[in-house]
Every structure is written in structure tokens, then in C-alpha cells.
């Protein structure tokens, strides 16, 4: 159990390429923080710097009350879950779980106890003597998590642990990870590019773009008040509509905005609404549908309940107070 404090952390590769710059995050003891961003935004690099697999070029990382910059990964008291599980293929599940403890000279009885405990928590008891190759993807993922749990580390680091699973399993495993973390109360950092995964798992979200933090906040804060157009377009599905103010100059209260954002779910069909949209395509999702169209040359998406066929043109109104205003540089004004 420990807090993790990143202070102005940066990563510059030997060739001079900057992958991460000026990242400061305070992660409280027991908190579940998700780093989210598109591929290449530096989120994995950041996690690997916390793990010690990547050297830290700038700033400091503290785990608990120690600065760990120059401490070997094994001595940082962290456990990591990898995207491709990284189970030792020649060892049985039991040996996989026990390997880290064995290397730390944990007494045999203690190892057995912890392995049994982890196996029970993760329900992998029946497979303990199998080789990883005889397990399904979900089971392997559980074993990988088991390997982290048995260590009883100060922090769990997850590097896109669910991306190799199929969509359905991903949803179940997501929930399991969440429950597990609730139960163990271990500080966790979780990296993903999937905004839905990020929203559902996180106590706090850190949205990264091009190696820099765009916004830190609880999932709802980030969703309701995205700090920039980047965050606005990245968090939420379907993505927020971002319209240049020039396309809709008549909307009241938007005088200083460069870009106006409206969530698709904040738009409703209203005969006297201020926006007119030409309908281009409709995606039926069952309970609701996504209507794609354009207004003043800008793309617009609306979520609405499924129903009868739509006319060619729709008039739309937005929920009062639901407009997000961004300045010319894409930063939030209101």
C-alpha cells in the first residue's frame, strides 16, 4: 500500500525524441488511476517508467516515501500485468505465481498460502497444475493478475491487460478487475486506449495526448467538463460534436468561442430548434440510433430513440447549459 507521486516526469530517447514531458500526478493510496490516450501518446512509456523498465530522463517518481528513479524494478515493490500476459510458458500456473516469491526467498509455506489465496480469489484453482498454453485467453489473464496479487505489492501496474481478449470477455474481466481492486485496495495504474474501459474502471482519469497531460479528473468530471477539444473528442461514445462557431454564428452566448461542443445525447429533435441538420446516414443500435448529418458544412451526430423513418432535414434543440465552449486553441472557456 502506497501513494505514487510523479513530479515533472519526462522521457527523452537517445535520438532526442521526446515521448513524455512534464507529467505530474499525485496518486493516493488505494486509488485506481487510468492513463488513457490514443496510441503513441506516451501512456505506456509513462507506466514503464513507474515500473522501472524504462529509465526516467526528467523528474522524479516516488512510490510510498522512496524516490525510485534509480531502483531496480524488482525492488520497487510493484507488480505489472502485461498485455500479452507474459506468462512463463514452461512453468505451470502454480510455478508462474510462485516464481516472484521464490526469487524473494519467501518461505515455502508462505508461498503456498498466498498462491492458494490468489487462486481462490481469481478462481483458477482447478488450473494450477496446467501449463499456460492449455488455458484460454481469459484464464491466462487471470493467472497474470494472480502473479501480481501473490506479491502483495504496493501498486499494481496494468498495461492494456484486456486488449487481447474478445469484446464480451473484456467486459466481464473489466468488472472483475474493478471488483478485485475494490477488495484489495491496492494503488493501481492502468493504461488503456479504450475510453469506455477508462471511464468504467477509473477513480481518476488521466487523459494524455502527445506525451502531455490534457486533463486529470474523475470520469464524470472529464466527461462533463472536458478541458480541451482533444479530451472532448476522445472521451464519450459517440464522440462529442465539435462545430466551428463560424458554422453556427446565431447560437446565443457563444461569442468568444472558437469551437462549440455538443454531446450527441444532448441534442433533441424540436420543430423550433436553433439548429438545422441535413440527415446523411442512420446507424440503428436497437434501443436507440445514431443519426449522422451536417449543419453549415460541419459533421453532426445525434443520438435519439429508434422510431419511424426520418425526414431529410431535422431541426434540433440542445439541452440548456449543455454547450461546451472552447477557444481558438481548443482550450475550454465554459
Amino acid at each position, binding site marked *: 500500500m502506497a501513494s505514487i507521486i510523479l513530479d515533472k516526469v519526462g522521457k527523452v530517447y537517445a535520438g532526442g525524441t521526446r515521448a513524455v514531458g512534464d507529467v505530474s500526478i499525485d496518486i493516493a493510496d488505494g486509488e485506481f488511476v487510468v492513463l488513457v490516450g490514443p496510441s503513441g501518446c506516451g501512456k505506456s512509456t509513462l507506466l514503464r517508467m513507474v515500473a522501472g523498465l524504462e529509465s526516467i530522463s526528467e523528474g522524479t517518481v516516488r512510490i510510498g516515501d522512496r524516490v525510485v528513479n534509480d531502483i*531496480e524494478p524488482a525492488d520497487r515493490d510493484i507488480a505489472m500485468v502485461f498485455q500479452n500476459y*507474459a506468462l512463463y*510458458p514452461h512453468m505451470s500456473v502454480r510455478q508462474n505465481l510462485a516464481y*516472484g516469491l521464490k*526469487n524473494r526467498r519467501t518461505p515455502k509455506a508462505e508461498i503456498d498460502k498466498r498462491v492458494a489465496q490468489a487462486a481462490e480469489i481469481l478462481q483458477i484453482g482447478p488450473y494450477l497444475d496446467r501449463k499456460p498454453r492449455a488455458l484460454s485467453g481469459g484464464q491466462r489473464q487471470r493467472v497474470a493478475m494472480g502473479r501480481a496479487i501473490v506479491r502483495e505489492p504496493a501498486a499494481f501496474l496494468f498495461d492494456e491487460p484486456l486488449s487481447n481478449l474478445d469484446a464480451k470477455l473484456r467486459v466481464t474481466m473489466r468488472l472483475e478487475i474493478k471488483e478485485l481492486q475494490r477488495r484489495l485496495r491496492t494503488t493501481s495504474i492502468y493504461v488503456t486506449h479504450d475510453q469506455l474501459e477508462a471511464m468504467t474502471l477509473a477513480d481518476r482519469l488521466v487523459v494524455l495526448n502527445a506525451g502531455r497531460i490534457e486533463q486529470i479528473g474523475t470520469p464524470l468530471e472529464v466527461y462533463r467538463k472536458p478541458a480541451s477539444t482533444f479530451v472532448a473528442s476522445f472521451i464519450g461514445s459517440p464522440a462529442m460534436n465539435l462545430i466551428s462557431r463560424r458554422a453556427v454564428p446565431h447560437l446565443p452566448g457563444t461569442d468568444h468561442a472558437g469551437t462549440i461542443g455538443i454531446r450527441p445525447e444532448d441534442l433533441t429533435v424540436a420543430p423550433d430548434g436553433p439548429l438545422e441538420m441535413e440527415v446523411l446516414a442512420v446507424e440503428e443500435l436497437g434501443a436507440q440510433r445514431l443519426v449522422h448529418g451536417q449543419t453549415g458544412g460541419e459533421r453532426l451526430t445525434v443520438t435519439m430513440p429508434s422510431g419511424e423513418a426520418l425526414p431529410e432535414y431535422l431541426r434540433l434543440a440542445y439541452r440548456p447549459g449543455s454547450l461546451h465552449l472552447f477557444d481558438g486553441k481548443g482550450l475550454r472557456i465554459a
Partner: protein
Amino acid sequence: MIENRPGLNLLAHLTLMLGVAVVALPVWVAFVASTHTATDFMSGTIPLWPGPHLIENYSQMLGAGVSTSGTPPVGTMMWNSLVMALLIACGKIAISITSAFAIVYFRFPLRQLAFWCIFITMMLPVEVRIVPTFQVVADLGLLNSYAGLSIPLIASATATFLFRQVFLTIPDELTEAARIDGAGPMKFFRDILLPLSRTNIAALFVILFIYGWNQYLWPLLITTSSDYYTIVAGIKRMADAVDGLPQWHLVMATAMLAMLPPVAVVIGMQRLFVKGLVETEK
């Protein structure tokens, strides 16, 4: 082949049988020769069926050897060959797996240069450097010793390269997981790399054992004492009868015996061997 036509099957089988015959006929003739007396084989027609002297010939070779050609009993020579082949195979594997480990997993100055230097030695097999190598071995006083027989043949670029390729297929995450699990470099080597290269080691062992067993030129050069004759070089010496006819029945019996250990190794390690050459999943 997905097609199942009797004609094609027959053709395929005939081709295979022909191949087996081409390979097996000389072996068969050697075996037949080893079961006759010396005169039977010199009489003009080569017998094609085994004769009655099998036990007699083999027990003479295993027990006394051929005194006239100055070779020791087959047992001694087989033992020498076995020691040499094992030293070469194990030595090559040990050296090349550790050098591949260094090249793949450690960042040291001139790493690429080191790799290419190893690689270039492929162009310098024993036959090319035989005179200087002999000089070195002689200066070190290693003539007529197991060390002299095996050490000059141990360095192997091919095996290093093979292990390098094997290590490159092992995912980085596995290395990282081991690092987080507190395995230092040597522990990682012992606990992860060695078990994962098990099948490759076996495949390489088979190839290298046969390579070592079949060494002819080098042992012939550096062994002058009959205590260190290897079997392959010994057969040559037996066939070189100066003052009489070569005793072909005994030479062939020796050849048959010389064939057994490599065959045993191949058969014994067949499954691992094939697995080591075709297995890709890590």
C-alpha cells in the same frame, strides 16, 4: 497432398523406396561384409547375404582389435570418439548459448562488432586454419589429448547465430516480467532461457554430436598415440594395411559399430529434434 489417387500414391512410395535403397544398400553391403571371413570377400563375387562369422568378427574387433594395423581395440576408439563428440557438442552448445545470451540481452560497447566477428568466423572452418591451429595446439602441448581433440572445434558461429535467433523470438515482456519478478540476469538465463531453448538445444546436440563423431581430418592430424585414436580415423588406419590385404571383414565390422552411437542419438532424440527445428510458438 490433398489428392488421394492410387497412381500417385504408388509413385510416391516407389520414389521413397528407391531413395531408401540408394541409402541403405552400401550399409547393407558393409553389414554383409562384416559377417564373412576375409577370403570370402576377396574371392571375386561380393556376397549379398550375411555369412556365419558375425559373432566371431565382432568379438575380435571388440576384444583384441587388429594388431597388424596398429590400432587399439574398437572399444578404446569408440570411447575416444564418444568423449570427443560429447565434448565438442556440449562445449559448442555451452559457449554459443552464453555468447548469444550476451549479444542479445546485454548492451555493451562494440556489441554489433562482437556479433559480426563471431559471424565472420563461419568463413574459417578448421580445414582453412588447420596449420596455424595445429601450431597453437602443439605449442600448448595438447597433442594426444582429449582437450586437443575437442577445443579447437568448439567455437561455433552457427550455433551462436541459431541461439541468437531463438532468443530474439522470446517476447520482451517475458524478460520484463522476469525482471519485475526479481530474476537477475543469470537467474533469468537459468530459469527462463534455458528451459525455453530446451528443444533447440536438443536439436543442436544431435547435429553437433554427429559433427563431432564424424571428425576425421583433425583427429588424424593431432593423434599420434594409439591411445587417442578415434574410430573414424581408426577405420582409415585399419584399411591402410601396408604388408598385406586390408581385412575388409574387420574394417566393415568396425564401420558398423562406428555407426551405432550416432544412430542411437538420432533415434533417441528424434522427437525433440523435430520439435526443435519446427516449433515456433514460445
